[in-house]
């Protein structure tokens, strides 16, 4: 199987600091992959290595089967958005996209069509202001447009949603969704909800180490947990007995009681919990006042994976 992105045992050190530690990832063509991790996790370094802008200390990287080498970034047919994109700010967005199109050797008609389409899509159509007058959000949108101008088969986006308002974010992730199956997209982000919405695969990295590399569906199915917050009324002793009883149930991972008296339960089976817990409350002569269930999503998993000792 030919992968769009292949990273084999890549390590990158900056002096004594290991930014990326023995990373191996394979992304099939057409995958939308979210790259998640706290600041300093090694996401930007990995993306830059994939672009050939940074040389790995050891290991190999391939994009579309081509081995990535420093100085050969032009040969990869990759659309790239850096974390802080820099533009020739004396140009307008249209002029800049035309310039990019010409560098990519696109023909005039293609450049014209694609530029108009991207400007429209990212809300920059008709903006005659020079780039130096743009807000950060506008620059970010232009950054994504320039990454897509050449219809690349692989797109690497470093924090594409940063500096964007909800409308801008929606436009970008709708666009990413529309690329699913046709273009391989790897994007880094802090916004877990966006990953859940558009990605097939998620990579969670922390301190240079890849902690999770799996398909989104698998991850949520495998590690699903339900947080139950409930309040009961009755004698304190009875409530303590109820908590002890719940602690011994197989389908319950943990039980706690906060200062406001709310009992927080982490349950592995929400259906069973929903049937049994009210019955137990009744057995202990208590009244159920409130019962709220939240299914634990990727965000909680992410926090668990990257939480440090």
């Amino acid at each position, binding site marked *: 199987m030919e992968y769009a992105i292949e990273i084999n045992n890549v390590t990158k050190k900056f002096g004594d600091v290991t930014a990326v530690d023995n990373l191996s990832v394979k992304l099939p063509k057409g995958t939308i992959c979210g790259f998640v991790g706290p600041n300093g996790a090694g996401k930007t370094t990995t993306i830059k290595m994939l672009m050939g802008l940074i*040389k790995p200390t050891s290991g190999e990287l391939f994009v579309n089967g081509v081995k990535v080498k420093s*100085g050969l970034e032009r040969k990869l047919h990759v659309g790239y958005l850096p974390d802080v994109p*820099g533009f020739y700010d004396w140009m307008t967005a249209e002029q800049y996209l035309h*310039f990019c199109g010409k*560098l990519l050797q696109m023909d005039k008609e293609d450049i014209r069509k694609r530029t108009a389409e991207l400007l429209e899509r990212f809300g920059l159509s008709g903006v005659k202001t020079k780039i130096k007058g743009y807000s950060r959000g506008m620059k970010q949108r232009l950054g994504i447009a320039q990454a897509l101008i050449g219809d690349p088969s692989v797109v690497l986006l470093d924090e594409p949603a940063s500096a964007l308002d909800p409308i801008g974010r929606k436009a970008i992730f709708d666009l990413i969704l529309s690329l699913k199956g046709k273009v391989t997209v790897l994007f880094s982000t802090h916004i877990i909800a966006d990953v859940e919405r558009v990605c097939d695969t998620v990579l969670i990295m922390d301190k240079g180490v890849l902690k999770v590399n799996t398909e989104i569906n698998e991850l949520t199915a495998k590690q699903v947990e339900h947080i139950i917050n409930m309040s009961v009324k009755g004698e304190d002793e009875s409530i303590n007995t109820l908590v002890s009883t719940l602690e011994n149930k197989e389908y319950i991972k943990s039980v706690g009681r906060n200062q406001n008296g709310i009992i927080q339960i982490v349950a592995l089976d929400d259906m069973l919990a929903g049937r049994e817990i009210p019955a137990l409350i009744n057995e202990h002569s208590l009244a159920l006042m409130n019962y709220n269930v939240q299914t634990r999503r990727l965000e909680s998993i992410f926090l668990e994976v990257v939480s440090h000792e």
Partner: protein
Amino acid sequence: MNNFIVFLKKELKEFVKTWKLLILLALFIVNSFMSPILYYYMPKLLELSGLPGAAEQFDMSLASYYTQYYGNQFQSGFLALIFITCLAVVREKKKGTAILTLTKNISRPTFVLAKYISYVIWYTVVYVVSSAAFAAMIKVLINESINKHTIASFGLFYLIGIMFAAGAIFASCIGKNTIVSCLIGFGVYIAVFILAAIPYVNKFTPAMLLDNSITALSGNYENLLIPLLTCIGCTVLFLVLGIVSFEKQEL
């Protein structure tokens, strides 16, 4: 369209849009006018100041006017050329514009070469305009017309600027920030200055072209080959080193 041409056109447009090289034009032009005028009136000013015999010691030959002019351009015009050219690559690296451009099917050597050629084109325009202005001033002041020897003289002096521009591009490629690049560029300038002052060694340095451009005025082209070759050699060397270092850099 060839990537080199696309990027070169962008660079040339940028000069006009950002006015960034107007300072160079202004400096060269000011020297073109002020240098011969000041030299022409200096004896009279000295006479007025009452210094006895000072005015007679002034050599008012054509060569002296050129020596004065070249000296001024060397000390201020070339220095401005170096500092401005030193920003060419390093500013793109710092601003992040280089990354976006280099991921658009343009090679790093093409990027550096197009930068260099654009600065050379602009320097050439500035140089031709300022040389024409200087020649016009000479005609007005001492009624000396331009001839093939003065053109050769201008040409030889021009080559020193070409070399300095290459040195500045090299500095811009290897510098991590604008200050470091400017310091390296200034180092190249000072090195040429120092080498020119060392007897015997100076015959082999590009700075000797400054003397050659004066002797060329009288049709004397002796001892030209070695400084000419070292000047061209240094230009090529600076460019190659700049490109090689830029190719190896992590952006």
